[in-house]
Every structure is written in C-alpha cells, then in structure tokens.
C-alpha cells in the first residue's frame, strides 16, 4: 500500500517544490502566479470563508447528485418497461450530453429569484440525471439472453425477471454512472456560479478574487474546489467497493483455494 502510494506522492511534492522554486527563481509577480506557500497561507487564514463557500457549492452538488440519481433511476425503470420511450429519449440524452448544458443555468436564473440556489441545483440535477439514466437503462436492458431464456424456462414473470435479473445486473452500471456523475456534479455546481446569482460559492469566489487581483486567495478557493471534487469521487469509489462484496469474497476464496 505504502509502496504504491509513495511514487505519486513524491511526484506531487516535487511538482509543488518546482512551482515554488520557479516563482522565486524567475521572480514571478504574485498577480501572474502565486507560489504554493502563499496559497496555503491564504487557505488557512481564510479557512472559515473557504469552508463556507465550499459548503454552499458542495450542498448544491450533493442535492443535485441525489435528486438526479433518484430521477435517473426512476426514469430508467420506465424506459426499460416501455422500450419505445427509450428510442425517443436516448437521442435527446445524447444531444444534451454533447452540448455544454450548464449554459441553461442562465435561463434558469431568469426563472427564479437572483438569490436562489435552485437554478444551480436544477442544473446539477439535469447533468446527473442523464448520466444515470443512460447507464442504468443500459444495465436493465443489456441482460444475457441465456439468463432471460433460463428465467422463462422457470416460468418467471416479467416482474420476477426485473427483480432477480435486471436490477442486480444494473447495479454495477449505477456505480459506474455515479463515478462519472459525482465529479460532474461538483464541476457543474462551480460553473453554474459563473452565470450570476449569489456570490457565495467557490466558483464565484474564484472569479471575484481574481477580479480584485487577489491571486493567491483565488488559488486557495481552487484548492478547496479540488478537495471537494476529490471528496465526491472518493465517496463514489467507496460505494463501488461496498457493492463489490463479491470481489472481496473472490480474493479470500482464491487464497483458500490455493491451500487445498
């Protein structure tokens, strides 16, 4: 574990050292590039502010992630039941995924009061919704033909096949969707803040600090954004581990099999 973690850790430290050295050595001005040490000191001295902004953006991302997942899973069940709908909705989902749909937040801002967090949350929900919908619907539909024939040979009803075959088959697809959706939710929450509304989240703090030439402070918020994104990704990875209990059994069992 340590041996695997060490090389990337050293690379990261080396990169920061290089950065710090370059700023000092080439005498780069703070408004051009702030050194890591200054960013870190901004991060710690303004920690309450940074944490407040991270909470706002993080809450938007989390609410959107949960709402989008719930809606996406629900819709994927509807799609798997009525196949013709899938032919109507899938191209739309792909089209919406291909364009940067967070520009929609400008329209949403118009619909709600300027201080509302709803447009941003709706935006995150939309992004997550389509990622979850497309993946989970695939998991529900892409079932081995042998499994379907087998279940029918056991006189299983469609509902039983859904419960015992389609849903378990879709679980890994949901986990994959969440691994993509979790970082996307954070990114969407930040970017949504660039289109007006309250200046209380990480995204808007980054722009306002840059506007005031407080470069190091802006970087402190970027650092917080990175950490928030990592936190969401880490949670999705843990979730993957939990749903892959079979994998854990696998390792134990093969170790046991080696002895016999």
């Amino acid at each position: 574990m340590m041996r695997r973690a060490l090389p990337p850790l050293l690379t990261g430290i080396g990169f920061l050292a290089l950065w710090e050295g370059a700023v000092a050595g080439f005498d780069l001005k703070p408004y051009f590039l702030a050194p890591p040490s200054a960013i870190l000191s901004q991060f710690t001295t303004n920690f309450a502010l940074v944490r407040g902004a991270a909470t706002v953006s993080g809450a938007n991302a989390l609410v959107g992630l949960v709402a989008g997942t719930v809606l996406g899973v629900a819709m994927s069940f509807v799609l798997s039941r009525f196949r013709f709908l899938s032919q109507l909705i899938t191209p739309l989902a792909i089209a919406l995924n291909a364009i940067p749909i967070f520009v929609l937040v400008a329209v949403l801002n118009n619909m709600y009061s300027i201080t509302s967090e709803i447009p941003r949350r709706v935006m995150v929900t939309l992004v997550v919704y389509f990622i979850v919908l497309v993946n989970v619907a695939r998991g529900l539909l892409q079932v081995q033909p042998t499994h379907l024939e087998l279940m029918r040979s056991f006189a299983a009803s469609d509902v039983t096949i859904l419960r015992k075959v389609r849903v378990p088959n879709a679980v890994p697809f949901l986990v994959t969707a969440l691994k993509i959706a979790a970082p996307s939710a954070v990114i969407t929450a930040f970017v949504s803040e660039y289109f007006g509304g309250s200046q209380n989240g990480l995204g808007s703090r980054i722009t306002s600090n840059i506007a005031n030439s407080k470069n190091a402070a802006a970087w402190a918020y970027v650092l917080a954004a990175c950490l928030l994104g990592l936190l969401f990704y880490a949670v999705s990875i843990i979730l993957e581990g939990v749903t892959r209990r079979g994998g854990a059994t696998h390792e134990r069992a093969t170790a046991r099999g080696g002895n016999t």
Partner: protein
Amino acid sequence: MSVTSNATGDVAVNAAVVADRVDKTFATGKAARVDALMDVSLTVRAGEFVSLIGPSGCGKSTLLRIIANLLEPTSGTVSVNGKPAARARLDQDYGMAFQQAGLFDWRTVRKNVELPLELKGWDSARRRARAEEMLALVQLPEFADHHPWQLSGGMQQRIAIARALAAHPRLLLMDEPFGALDEMTREYMQGELLRICAQTGTTVVFVTHSIPEAVYLSQRVVVMSPRPGRITRVVEVPIAGPRSEDTRNSEEFFRSITAVREGLRGHGAAGAGADDR
C-alpha cells in the same frame, strides 16, 4: 419405420415428449421467410436419452425451444409429460441447460442452485437442503459459497445442471451444454451427465454438433437437416447396459457413429438401426 412406430406405440403410457407435425416459420422481413422446422414429429419415452444432431440451421435448437415452450410452433402440437408444453413450462416440469452456463455472478453457487426453488416459493431451509443435495449430486459440495466466476467452465456447467435439476423435474432439455468445453473436460462431463441421469432417472433431450457425443450419450440419435429443418433419420444406438469409457472403443459405438455420419451426409439407409424417413 420400426423405430418410430415403436416410439409412438406406447405414447399414451409414458411419453416424456410428444411433438406432432410441428412447423415453425420465422417471418424475418417482407420477403425472407425461414422454414426453421417442417413437419417434425418426435416422441421421447420417459427415461430415454435422445440427442438432436445436425448442421447449423437445421432447427435442432428451435425444436428444443418449442419443446420448452420458449417458442411457439407455427402449427402442430407439443406435449410434455402428457400436458401442453405451455402448461408444463408453468409447472416447471422440465429443467434446461444452455451452452453458456448462465450462472448469475452476483449469487453464490448455492444461491444459483436455489433459484428455481425460490421461484417456486420454497422456504429457505428446504431450499438449502435441496441445494446441498444437488451439489453433492454434481460432486461440488465444497464450492457452495464460491461465486461462479471462481469456477472453471466444466464446474460452472455442472452447477448449471444442478440448478436445472434442483426442482427434480423428470425432463432435462440441454442445448449444446458442453459445446464451449475442451475435449477432455467434455468427455468427463458426458460421463458425469450419464451418471446423474442414471441416479435421478431423468429423461434428456440433448442438442449437439458432435457425433461421438450424441452416440455416446444417447439411446437414439435424431438426425436433422436444414432448409427446411426436418428429421431425416433416427439412429438407434444398440449399446446395452450402462456406458463406460470402454464404450468409446466398442464395435457398436463406431458402427453407430458411421450410421449418424451417413445420415448427416444424406446417404441411404446403411447403418445399424438406421431409419430413413
């Protein structure tokens, strides 16, 4: 005609499967109509082992699926254990095994075997006891708590057979179950299958591409030919008593293989017990 008349003579008494003038046409497009089966009649006696053999497209898998009521015949009737095929499926009167073992990766081996019993609404204690019994039958009791992907292809296929037989059906339908296995494992599995069937008294309808496999396993080999799919010959395998590895070297074994091969090539009746139709 002696073989078929023998077979149909005691239909009323104990036939596991009766297919009567079954046609199956797949309408795939405007012009393309495929006659998958034409005028197929077949009777399988209870306790008998019958193989369906023929080139790709001869309709052998289609016939098996019609017996299983996974497909409806275009015309003709099929009865299983004296009931219409649809009723027999709903009553779980048969078990089925496919070329892919088709085990569920998210279930343990034990839970895979318990699946048909779960669908029948058995309580967990009874399911567990039966699963133990079935795993003992296929000689893999120590793998109950493993997951399917931890087992070899041959082991997976044995679990699939245990699952197919878990509800103690009297009929086992098998669609090239050993087709994906290597030759050594395949011969071992053939021996295992015969042992299991002898132990349980199960009737088997077995689809295969392999002539030696069909002859080794079966009392009768049904030879089919394509376009339209039909039965061209039924070869009775005159090997008395239980089969062993020695059977593979016996005179009757080779003679039956020749008869099936000639049937597949469309030669006139020459082999032992061959019956051209």
